[in-house]
């Protein structure tokens, strides 16, 4: 590490750590919604760190504008694509794991008690989509 420069290398190291953490979360978490949580949030932070470090390492105006554009675009689109995937999977009937997955658990937000209510709202949303001809029933 003879040429270690903190302002350049520290953001890259932190970003790489967060990207690896996101990958481990995507592989290890139990259902789609928690995996989306890991991938969208951690990858946003990790790629931001790496782009910042790369901008300092290249130290060039053209590179800096391109990296800023990529970073802004990632910040705009990563939550949006996570939302789209979660919405599509949920409306297509993939149930989230609530509580501890065996019907127990802490139920901190009262989600287990409102499961029927939520399912009713989902059926309503699918029915509205079907009336507009956007989705095939079922």
């Amino acid at each position, binding site marked *: *590490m003879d*040429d*270690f420069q903190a302002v*350049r*290398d520290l953001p*890259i*190291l932190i*970003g*790489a*750590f967060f*990207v*690896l953490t*996101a*990958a*481990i979360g*995507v*592989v290890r978490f139990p259902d*789609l919604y928690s*995996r*989306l949580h890991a*991938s969208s949030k951690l*990858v946003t932070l*990790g*790629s931001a760190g*790496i*782009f910042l*470090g*790369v901008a300092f*390492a*290249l130290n*060039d105006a*053209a*590179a800096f504008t*391109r*990296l800023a*554009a*990529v970073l802004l*675009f*990632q910040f705009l*689109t*990563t939550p*949006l*694509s*996570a939302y*789209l*995937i*979660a*919405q*599509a*999977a949920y*409306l*297509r009937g*993939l149930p989230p794991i609530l509580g501890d997955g065996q019907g127990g658990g802490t139920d901190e937000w009262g989600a287990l008690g409102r499961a029927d209510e939520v399912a009713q709202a989902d059926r309503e949303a699918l029915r509205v*989509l079907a009336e507009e001809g*956007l*989705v*095939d029933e079922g």
Partner: protein
Amino acid sequence: MIINLALGIVTLSVLLVTYRVLRGPSWGDRIMAFDFLSVNLVVLFALIAVRTGYLVMLDAALVLSLLGFLSTVALTRYLLLGRVMK
């Protein structure tokens, strides 16, 4: 060198997530892992730009991030609506 270490870590995460693309029980998992891979490839391109000094890689990263989001939107629309366009 830190860049080499970061390249190795990001490549390792790409390999880990490829497991989720191949295995991932539902289509939502595959689309999510695919989106993750496209973001990771953007990061990898930025790191390669530093490693080799080819600044053209940053243009490739910009285009790849645009295309990655577009393909995610198209895939989720296909999953939800059964078609991509009206």
